[in-house]
Protein backbone atom coordinates (compact mmCIF):
# COMPACT_ATOMS: atom_id res chain seq x y z
CA UNK A 1 0.00 0.00 0.00
CA UNK A 2 1.42 3.36 -1.01
CA UNK A 3 2.58 5.68 1.77
CA UNK A 4 3.19 8.86 -0.21
CA UNK A 5 0.32 10.20 -2.29
CA UNK A 6 -0.35 13.06 -4.71
CA UNK A 7 -1.66 16.23 -3.10
CA UNK A 8 -5.50 16.33 -3.05
CA UNK A 9 -5.35 19.29 -5.44
CA UNK A 10 -3.51 17.18 -8.01
CA UNK A 11 -6.20 14.49 -7.73
CA UNK A 12 -8.79 17.20 -8.27
CA UNK A 13 -6.99 18.59 -11.34
CA UNK A 14 -6.85 15.06 -12.71
CA UNK A 15 -10.58 14.53 -12.03
CA UNK A 16 -11.44 17.91 -13.57
CA UNK A 17 -9.39 17.12 -16.67
CA UNK A 18 -7.16 20.20 -16.33
CA UNK A 19 -3.91 18.37 -15.56
CA UNK A 20 -1.54 17.81 -18.50
CA UNK A 21 -1.36 14.37 -20.08
CA UNK A 22 2.01 13.38 -18.51
CA UNK A 23 0.93 14.50 -15.02
CA UNK A 24 -2.40 12.71 -15.53
CA UNK A 25 -0.47 9.58 -16.49
CA UNK A 26 1.45 9.64 -13.18
CA UNK A 27 -1.73 10.27 -11.20
CA UNK A 28 -3.76 7.60 -13.03
CA UNK A 29 -0.99 5.01 -12.62
CA UNK A 30 -0.74 5.79 -8.91
CA UNK A 31 -4.53 5.62 -8.60
CA UNK A 32 -4.46 2.12 -10.16
CA UNK A 33 -2.45 0.83 -7.20
CA UNK A 34 -3.96 3.10 -4.52
CA UNK A 35 -7.64 2.42 -3.74
CA UNK A 36 -7.78 5.38 -1.34
CA UNK A 37 -6.78 7.90 -4.00
CA UNK A 38 -9.10 6.11 -6.43
CA UNK A 39 -12.09 6.77 -4.22
CA UNK A 40 -10.89 10.35 -3.73
CA UNK A 41 -10.87 10.83 -7.53
CA UNK A 42 -14.37 9.31 -7.69
CA UNK A 43 -15.51 11.90 -5.15
CA UNK A 44 -14.07 14.72 -7.22
CA UNK A 45 -15.77 13.32 -10.32
CA UNK A 46 -19.02 13.30 -8.39
CA UNK A 47 -18.39 16.97 -7.65
CA UNK A 48 -17.81 17.51 -11.39
CA UNK A 49 -21.12 15.79 -12.15
CA UNK A 50 -22.97 18.00 -9.65
CA UNK A 51 -21.33 21.15 -11.05
CA UNK A 52 -22.28 20.05 -14.58
CA UNK A 53 -25.92 19.65 -13.56
CA UNK A 54 -25.80 23.11 -11.96
CA UNK A 55 -24.15 24.83 -14.90
CA UNK A 56 -27.39 26.34 -16.16
CA UNK A 57 -29.21 25.67 -19.36
CA UNK A 58 -28.59 27.22 -22.70
CA UNK A 59 -30.34 26.37 -25.91
CA UNK A 60 -29.33 23.47 -28.04
CA UNK A 61 -30.17 23.88 -31.68
CA UNK A 62 -32.87 21.52 -32.89
CA UNK A 63 -30.52 20.51 -35.70
CA UNK A 64 -28.09 19.02 -33.15
CA UNK A 65 -30.94 16.96 -31.71
CA UNK A 66 -31.98 15.84 -35.20
CA UNK A 67 -28.40 14.94 -36.18
CA UNK A 68 -27.92 12.81 -33.08
CA UNK A 69 -31.28 11.05 -33.54
CA UNK A 70 -30.59 10.35 -37.19
CA UNK A 71 -27.45 8.43 -36.14
CA UNK A 72 -28.89 6.34 -33.31
CA UNK A 73 -29.87 3.34 -35.38
CA UNK A 74 -26.47 3.16 -37.04
CA UNK A 75 -24.57 3.55 -33.77
CA UNK A 76 -23.33 0.21 -32.50
CA UNK A 77 -23.74 -0.14 -28.76
CA UNK A 78 -20.49 -0.68 -26.90
CA UNK A 79 -21.33 -3.78 -24.93
CA UNK A 80 -19.31 -4.10 -21.78
CA UNK A 81 -16.96 -6.77 -22.99
CA UNK A 82 -13.60 -6.22 -21.39
CA UNK A 83 -10.74 -6.12 -23.86
CA UNK A 84 -8.60 -9.23 -23.85
CA UNK A 85 -6.47 -8.90 -20.74
CA UNK A 86 -3.06 -10.43 -20.31
CA UNK A 87 -3.08 -13.20 -17.74
CA UNK A 88 -1.25 -12.55 -14.51
CA UNK A 89 1.66 -14.61 -15.83
CA UNK A 90 1.90 -12.74 -19.14
CA UNK A 91 1.35 -9.21 -17.91
CA UNK A 92 4.18 -7.14 -16.59
CA UNK A 93 2.32 -6.47 -13.38
CA UNK A 94 4.92 -3.96 -12.30
CA UNK A 95 3.35 -1.59 -14.83
CA UNK A 96 -0.35 -1.06 -14.23
CA UNK A 97 -2.57 0.51 -16.87
CA UNK A 98 -2.73 3.19 -18.17
CA UNK A 99 1.09 3.17 -18.18
CA UNK A 100 1.32 -0.32 -19.71
CA UNK A 101 -0.73 0.77 -22.74
CA UNK A 102 1.62 3.74 -23.25
CA UNK A 103 4.73 1.52 -23.24
CA UNK A 104 3.34 -1.46 -25.13
CA UNK A 105 6.04 -3.89 -23.94
CA UNK A 106 7.67 -5.21 -20.77
CA UNK A 107 10.20 -2.98 -19.01
CA UNK A 108 13.17 -5.10 -20.10
CA UNK A 109 12.32 -4.72 -23.80
CA UNK A 110 12.29 -0.91 -23.90
CA UNK A 111 15.01 1.06 -25.70
CA UNK A 112 16.82 2.18 -22.56
CA UNK A 113 19.57 4.77 -22.79
CA UNK A 114 22.41 4.70 -20.30
CA UNK A 115 23.07 7.93 -18.42
CA UNK A 116 25.72 7.35 -15.78
CA UNK A 117 24.49 4.92 -13.14
CA UNK A 118 20.95 5.35 -14.42
CA UNK A 119 19.17 4.08 -17.52
CA UNK A 120 16.28 6.02 -18.92
CA UNK A 121 13.56 5.66 -21.51
CA UNK A 122 11.87 8.84 -22.67
CA UNK A 123 8.36 8.84 -24.18
CA UNK A 124 5.39 11.19 -24.63
CA UNK A 125 7.88 13.55 -26.24
CA UNK A 126 5.40 15.96 -27.85
CA UNK A 127 4.54 17.88 -24.68
CA UNK A 128 6.48 21.16 -24.66
CA UNK A 129 8.19 21.90 -21.35
CA UNK A 130 7.48 18.44 -19.99
CA UNK A 131 9.84 15.47 -19.89
CA UNK A 132 8.33 12.03 -19.31
CA UNK A 133 10.64 9.10 -18.75
CA UNK A 134 11.09 5.80 -17.04
CA UNK A 135 14.17 5.52 -14.85
CA UNK A 136 16.02 2.38 -13.89
CA UNK A 137 18.42 2.68 -10.98
CA UNK A 138 20.60 -0.39 -10.37
CA UNK A 139 20.15 -1.99 -6.96
CA UNK A 140 22.24 -0.24 -4.32
CA UNK A 141 23.26 2.59 -6.69
CA UNK A 142 22.64 6.29 -6.16
CA UNK A 143 21.39 8.76 -8.73
CA UNK A 144 23.84 11.63 -9.12
CA UNK A 145 22.95 14.66 -6.98
CA UNK A 146 20.60 16.81 -8.97
CA UNK A 147 18.11 19.64 -8.84
CA UNK A 148 15.17 20.32 -11.14
CA UNK A 149 13.74 23.09 -13.17
CA UNK A 150 10.05 23.32 -12.27
CA UNK A 151 8.45 20.36 -10.56
CA UNK A 152 9.17 16.67 -10.77
CA UNK A 153 6.85 13.81 -9.84
CA UNK A 154 8.47 10.41 -9.37
CA UNK A 155 6.28 7.32 -9.07
CA UNK A 156 7.95 4.08 -7.94
CA UNK A 157 6.90 1.10 -10.10
CA UNK A 158 9.21 -1.59 -8.74
CA UNK A 159 11.86 -1.81 -6.05
CA UNK A 160 12.30 1.32 -4.00
CA UNK A 161 14.67 4.11 -3.09
CA UNK A 162 15.69 6.13 -0.09
CA UNK A 163 15.96 9.88 -0.37
CA UNK A 164 16.81 12.25 2.47
CA UNK A 165 15.85 9.75 5.12
CA UNK A 166 12.54 8.65 3.60
CA UNK A 167 11.91 5.34 1.89
CA UNK A 168 9.74 5.29 -1.25
CA UNK A 169 8.30 1.96 -2.38
CA UNK A 170 5.93 0.73 -5.07
CA UNK A 171 3.09 3.19 -5.71
CA UNK A 172 4.71 6.02 -3.75
CA UNK A 173 5.05 9.46 -5.31
CA UNK A 174 7.89 11.82 -4.49
CA UNK A 175 7.40 15.46 -5.43
CA UNK A 176 10.49 17.59 -5.87
CA UNK A 177 11.05 21.14 -7.09
CA UNK A 178 13.82 23.58 -7.98
CA UNK A 179 15.10 23.76 -4.45
CA UNK A 180 15.29 20.02 -3.94
CA UNK A 181 18.87 18.88 -4.15
CA UNK A 182 18.73 15.14 -3.82
CA UNK A 183 20.44 11.88 -4.60
CA UNK A 184 18.03 8.93 -4.25
CA UNK A 185 19.64 5.56 -3.50
CA UNK A 186 18.02 2.39 -4.84
CA UNK A 187 17.29 -0.51 -2.46
CA UNK A 188 19.94 -3.24 -2.21
CA UNK A 189 17.53 -6.07 -3.01
CA UNK A 190 16.42 -5.15 -6.52
CA UNK A 191 16.66 -2.63 -9.34
CA UNK A 192 14.35 0.33 -8.97
CA UNK A 193 12.02 1.36 -11.79
CA UNK A 194 10.28 4.74 -11.65
CA UNK A 195 8.07 6.90 -13.83
CA UNK A 196 9.34 10.48 -13.61
CA UNK A 197 7.63 13.54 -15.07
CA UNK A 198 9.39 16.88 -15.01
CA UNK A 199 7.28 19.92 -15.77
CA UNK A 200 9.32 23.09 -16.11
CA UNK A 201 6.22 25.26 -15.93
CA UNK A 202 5.01 24.07 -12.55
CA UNK A 203 6.14 25.41 -9.20
CA UNK A 204 5.56 24.10 -5.75
CA UNK A 205 4.56 26.51 -3.05
CA UNK A 206 4.95 26.64 0.67
CA UNK A 207 7.91 26.58 2.97
CA UNK A 208 8.94 23.02 2.17
CA UNK A 209 11.51 22.69 -0.55
CA UNK A 210 10.54 19.08 -0.88
CA UNK A 211 6.99 18.01 -0.52
CA UNK A 212 5.88 14.60 0.57
CA UNK A 213 2.29 13.90 1.26
CA UNK A 214 1.54 11.05 3.63
CA UNK A 215 -2.18 10.41 3.37
CA UNK A 216 -4.11 13.03 5.25
CA UNK A 217 -7.87 12.68 5.28
CA UNK A 218 -9.40 16.07 4.73
Amino acid at each position, binding site marked *: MAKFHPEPEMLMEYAAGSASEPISLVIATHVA*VCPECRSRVAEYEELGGALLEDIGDGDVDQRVFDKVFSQLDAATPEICEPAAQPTEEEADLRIPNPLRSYLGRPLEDLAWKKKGPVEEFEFLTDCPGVTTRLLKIKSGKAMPRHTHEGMELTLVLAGGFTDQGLHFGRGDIEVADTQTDHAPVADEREDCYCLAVNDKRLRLTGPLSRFVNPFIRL
Partner: protein
Amino acid sequence: MITDVHSFSIQNEGILGVRAINRNRRGLSGSWALPKTSELEGFRILSPGMALGGNSDWFIRPPMNSTKDLQVEIKAEDLTALMEAVAAHKDKSSFARLFNYFAPKVRAYMLRLGADAGAADDLVQDVMLTVWRRAPQFDPAKAGVGTWIFTIARNRRIDVIRKERRPEIDPNDPALVANDAPSADAALQQKRDQSSVRAAISELPEAQAQILRLAFFEDLSHGEIANELDLPLGTIKSRIRLATEKLRTKLSEIG
Protein backbone atom coordinates in the same frame (compact mmCIF):
# COMPACT_ATOMS: atom_id res chain seq x y z
CA MET B 1 -41.76 25.72 -12.27
CA ILE B 2 -42.97 26.96 -15.63
CA THR B 3 -46.04 29.09 -16.17
CA ASP B 4 -45.41 30.90 -19.42
CA VAL B 5 -44.95 29.65 -22.95
CA HIS B 6 -43.90 26.15 -23.85
CA SER B 7 -43.09 24.35 -26.99
CA PHE B 8 -42.59 20.74 -27.63
CA SER B 9 -40.99 18.75 -30.31
CA ILE B 10 -42.91 16.10 -32.17
CA GLN B 11 -41.03 13.27 -33.79
CA ASN B 12 -42.40 10.09 -35.32
CA GLU B 13 -43.15 8.46 -32.01
CA GLY B 14 -44.96 11.34 -30.39
CA ILE B 15 -43.90 14.05 -28.01
CA LEU B 16 -40.20 13.92 -27.33
CA GLY B 17 -39.64 17.01 -25.30
CA VAL B 18 -41.07 20.24 -24.06
CA ARG B 19 -39.09 23.38 -24.35
CA ALA B 20 -40.05 25.29 -21.25
CA ILE B 21 -39.56 28.97 -21.74
CA ASN B 22 -39.89 31.26 -18.82
CA ARG B 23 -39.86 34.83 -20.04
CA ASN B 24 -39.67 36.25 -16.56
CA ARG B 25 -36.49 34.51 -15.65
CA ARG B 26 -34.55 33.77 -18.74
CA GLY B 27 -35.95 35.69 -21.65
CA LEU B 28 -36.38 33.35 -24.53
CA SER B 29 -33.91 30.71 -23.56
CA GLY B 30 -35.20 27.53 -22.07
CA SER B 31 -34.53 23.96 -21.22
CA TRP B 32 -35.91 20.78 -22.65
CA ALA B 33 -37.75 18.19 -20.66
CA LEU B 34 -40.68 15.87 -21.02
CA PRO B 35 -43.79 16.28 -18.86
CA LYS B 36 -46.27 13.50 -18.26
CA THR B 37 -49.28 13.61 -20.57
CA SER B 38 -51.50 14.40 -17.57
CA GLU B 39 -49.47 17.52 -16.90
CA LEU B 40 -50.30 18.79 -20.37
CA GLU B 41 -54.05 18.57 -19.76
CA GLY B 42 -55.80 21.81 -20.50
CA PHE B 43 -52.84 23.30 -22.33
CA ARG B 44 -53.69 24.66 -25.73
CA ILE B 45 -51.62 23.20 -28.52
CA LEU B 46 -50.67 25.58 -31.31
CA SER B 47 -49.59 24.31 -34.67
CA PRO B 48 -45.97 24.38 -35.71
CA GLY B 49 -46.22 27.30 -38.12
CA MET B 50 -47.08 29.66 -35.31
CA ALA B 51 -43.76 29.27 -33.62
CA LEU B 52 -41.27 32.04 -34.22
CA GLY B 53 -38.73 30.39 -36.47
CA GLY B 54 -40.18 27.10 -35.36
CA ASN B 55 -39.19 24.04 -37.33
CA SER B 56 -40.48 20.88 -35.75
CA ASP B 57 -41.26 22.71 -32.51
CA TRP B 58 -44.86 22.90 -31.51
CA PHE B 59 -45.92 25.53 -29.08
CA ILE B 60 -48.46 25.09 -26.35
CA ARG B 61 -50.04 27.60 -24.07
CA PRO B 62 -51.53 27.15 -20.63
CA PRO B 63 -55.31 27.76 -20.41
CA MET B 64 -56.30 31.41 -20.07
CA ASN B 65 -56.08 32.75 -16.50
CA SER B 66 -54.58 29.48 -15.46
CA THR B 67 -52.49 29.19 -12.36
CA LYS B 68 -51.43 25.79 -13.51
CA ASP B 69 -47.71 25.05 -13.39
CA LEU B 70 -45.96 22.64 -15.62
CA GLN B 71 -43.49 20.57 -13.64
CA VAL B 72 -40.65 19.73 -15.94
CA GLU B 73 -37.87 19.13 -13.44
CA ILE B 74 -36.49 15.63 -13.93
CA LYS B 75 -35.39 14.10 -10.66
CA ALA B 76 -32.18 12.20 -10.07
CA GLU B 77 -33.81 8.80 -9.73
CA ASP B 78 -35.63 9.35 -13.04
CA LEU B 79 -32.29 9.94 -14.75
CA THR B 80 -31.06 6.54 -13.58
CA ALA B 81 -34.27 4.88 -14.78
CA LEU B 82 -33.94 6.63 -18.15
CA MET B 83 -30.33 5.47 -18.53
CA GLU B 84 -31.35 1.93 -17.66
CA ALA B 85 -34.13 1.99 -20.26
CA VAL B 86 -31.60 3.14 -22.88
CA ALA B 87 -29.14 0.43 -21.83
CA ALA B 88 -31.70 -2.38 -21.68
CA HIS B 89 -33.76 -1.77 -24.82
CA LYS B 90 -32.34 1.23 -26.65
CA ASP B 91 -35.37 3.24 -25.66
CA LYS B 92 -35.31 6.37 -27.80
CA SER B 93 -37.86 8.38 -25.90
CA SER B 94 -35.88 7.88 -22.68
CA PHE B 95 -32.77 8.92 -24.57
CA ALA B 96 -34.60 12.01 -25.83
CA ARG B 97 -35.36 13.01 -22.26
CA LEU B 98 -31.74 12.52 -21.28
CA PHE B 99 -30.70 14.52 -24.32
CA ASN B 100 -33.03 17.34 -23.45
CA TYR B 101 -31.77 17.45 -19.89
CA PHE B 102 -28.04 17.04 -20.49
CA ALA B 103 -27.29 18.40 -23.99
CA PRO B 104 -27.69 22.07 -22.92
CA LYS B 105 -25.47 21.41 -19.89
CA VAL B 106 -22.79 19.69 -21.95
CA ARG B 107 -22.89 22.56 -24.44
CA ALA B 108 -22.57 25.16 -21.66
CA TYR B 109 -19.66 23.13 -20.21
CA MET B 110 -17.83 23.14 -23.56
CA LEU B 111 -18.43 26.88 -24.04
CA ARG B 112 -17.14 27.61 -20.52
CA LEU B 113 -14.01 25.65 -21.41
CA GLY B 114 -13.38 27.84 -24.45
CA ALA B 115 -14.94 25.88 -27.31
CA ASP B 116 -16.59 28.07 -29.98
CA ALA B 117 -20.27 27.54 -30.76
CA GLY B 118 -19.59 25.17 -33.66
CA ALA B 119 -17.13 23.03 -31.71
CA ALA B 120 -19.51 22.99 -28.72
CA ASP B 121 -22.35 21.70 -30.93
CA ASP B 122 -20.07 19.04 -32.42
CA LEU B 123 -19.01 17.96 -28.93
CA VAL B 124 -22.64 17.80 -27.76
CA GLN B 125 -23.32 15.39 -30.65
CA ASP B 126 -20.18 13.42 -29.91
CA VAL B 127 -20.88 13.17 -26.16
CA MET B 128 -24.57 12.27 -26.53
CA LEU B 129 -23.81 9.60 -29.14
CA THR B 130 -21.14 8.22 -26.80
CA VAL B 131 -23.76 8.12 -24.02
CA TRP B 132 -26.07 6.18 -26.36
CA ARG B 133 -23.39 3.70 -27.41
CA ARG B 134 -21.92 3.18 -23.95
CA ALA B 135 -25.25 3.00 -22.13
CA PRO B 136 -24.76 -0.75 -21.44
CA GLN B 137 -21.62 0.16 -19.46
CA PHE B 138 -23.44 2.58 -17.16
CA ASP B 139 -23.40 1.22 -13.60
CA PRO B 140 -25.56 3.15 -11.13
CA ALA B 141 -23.70 1.50 -8.23
CA LYS B 142 -20.51 3.22 -9.36
CA ALA B 143 -21.64 6.70 -10.34
CA GLY B 144 -24.73 8.82 -10.85
CA VAL B 145 -25.86 9.67 -14.39
CA GLY B 146 -24.58 13.26 -14.06
CA THR B 147 -21.15 12.06 -12.90
CA TRP B 148 -20.96 9.48 -15.66
CA ILE B 149 -21.87 12.00 -18.36
CA PHE B 150 -19.44 14.52 -16.85
CA THR B 151 -16.56 12.04 -17.23
CA ILE B 152 -17.56 11.34 -20.85
CA ALA B 153 -17.77 15.08 -21.64
CA ARG B 154 -14.43 15.72 -19.92
CA ASN B 155 -12.68 12.91 -21.83
CA ARG B 156 -14.18 13.74 -25.22
CA ARG B 157 -13.08 17.37 -24.80
CA ILE B 158 -9.51 16.33 -23.95
CA ASP B 159 -9.50 14.06 -26.99
CA VAL B 160 -11.11 16.45 -29.50
CA ILE B 161 -9.99 19.91 -28.33
CA ARG B 162 -6.68 19.25 -26.58
CA LYS B 163 -5.89 16.35 -28.91
CA GLU B 164 -4.42 14.40 -26.03
CA ARG B 165 -5.06 10.97 -24.64
CA ARG B 166 -6.81 10.74 -21.31
CA PRO B 167 -4.89 8.32 -19.08
CA GLU B 168 -7.45 6.30 -17.12
CA ILE B 169 -7.32 3.19 -15.00
CA ASP B 170 -8.60 -0.03 -16.46
CA PRO B 171 -11.01 -1.71 -14.03
CA ASN B 172 -10.23 -5.13 -15.56
CA ASP B 173 -6.45 -4.79 -15.28
CA PRO B 174 -4.96 -7.67 -13.23
CA ALA B 175 -2.37 -5.17 -11.95
CA LEU B 176 -5.07 -2.97 -10.43
CA VAL B 177 -4.88 -3.05 -6.63
CA ALA B 178 -8.41 -3.83 -5.50
CA ASN B 179 -10.08 -2.04 -2.68
CA ASP B 180 -10.32 -5.04 -0.35
CA ALA B 181 -12.10 -3.19 2.45
CA PRO B 182 -14.54 -0.72 0.91
CA SER B 183 -14.72 2.07 3.44
CA ALA B 184 -17.97 3.24 4.97
CA ASP B 185 -17.43 6.41 2.95
CA ALA B 186 -17.58 4.50 -0.32
CA ALA B 187 -20.80 2.78 0.69
CA LEU B 188 -22.35 6.13 1.54
CA GLN B 189 -21.18 7.54 -1.71
CA GLN B 190 -22.93 4.85 -3.70
CA LYS B 191 -26.31 5.51 -2.20
CA ARG B 192 -26.08 9.26 -2.44
CA ASP B 193 -27.76 10.95 -5.36
CA GLN B 194 -26.42 13.90 -7.25
CA SER B 195 -29.00 16.26 -5.82
CA SER B 196 -27.51 16.02 -2.32
CA VAL B 197 -24.10 17.02 -3.68
CA ARG B 198 -25.73 19.91 -5.51
CA ALA B 199 -27.54 20.97 -2.35
CA ALA B 200 -24.26 20.85 -0.40
CA ILE B 201 -22.50 22.96 -3.06
CA SER B 202 -25.28 25.55 -2.89
CA GLU B 203 -24.57 26.02 0.81
CA LEU B 204 -20.89 26.80 0.32
CA PRO B 205 -19.70 30.39 0.66
CA GLU B 206 -19.59 31.93 -2.83
CA ALA B 207 -15.79 32.34 -2.85
CA GLN B 208 -15.38 28.59 -2.33
CA ALA B 209 -18.06 27.57 -4.84
CA GLN B 210 -16.49 29.95 -7.38
CA ILE B 211 -13.10 28.28 -7.05
CA LEU B 212 -14.61 24.83 -7.53
CA ARG B 213 -16.33 26.03 -10.71
CA LEU B 214 -13.07 27.56 -11.94
CA ALA B 215 -11.22 24.32 -11.21
CA PHE B 216 -13.72 22.26 -13.20
CA PHE B 217 -14.82 24.63 -15.97
CA GLU B 218 -11.88 26.81 -16.94
CA ASP B 219 -9.19 24.24 -17.77
CA LEU B 220 -6.94 26.04 -15.31
CA SER B 221 -4.42 24.52 -12.98
CA HIS B 222 -4.72 25.78 -9.44
CA GLY B 223 -1.66 27.95 -10.09
CA GLU B 224 -3.40 29.56 -13.06
CA ILE B 225 -6.54 30.13 -10.99
CA ALA B 226 -4.34 31.97 -8.48
CA ASN B 227 -3.06 34.25 -11.28
CA GLU B 228 -6.55 34.77 -12.66
CA LEU B 229 -7.98 35.82 -9.29
CA ASP B 230 -4.77 37.60 -8.28
CA LEU B 231 -4.60 35.60 -5.06
CA PRO B 232 -1.70 33.60 -3.63
CA LEU B 233 -1.71 29.91 -4.59
CA GLY B 234 -1.84 29.05 -0.88
CA THR B 235 -5.18 30.87 -0.60
CA ILE B 236 -6.58 28.95 -3.58
CA LYS B 237 -5.45 25.65 -2.11
CA SER B 238 -6.85 26.39 1.31
CA ARG B 239 -10.19 27.48 -0.21
CA ILE B 240 -10.36 24.26 -2.21
CA ARG B 241 -9.51 22.23 0.88
CA LEU B 242 -12.07 24.11 2.97
CA ALA B 243 -14.72 23.62 0.29
CA THR B 244 -14.08 19.89 -0.08
CA GLU B 245 -13.93 19.45 3.69
CA LYS B 246 -17.31 21.20 4.06
CA LEU B 247 -18.85 19.14 1.28
CA ARG B 248 -17.62 15.95 2.87
CA THR B 249 -19.01 16.92 6.29
CA LYS B 250 -22.35 17.96 4.79
CA LEU B 251 -22.68 14.75 2.80
CA SER B 252 -21.75 12.51 5.72
CA GLU B 253 -24.51 14.23 7.75
CA ILE B 254 -27.02 13.51 4.98
CA GLY B 255 -25.60 10.02 4.31
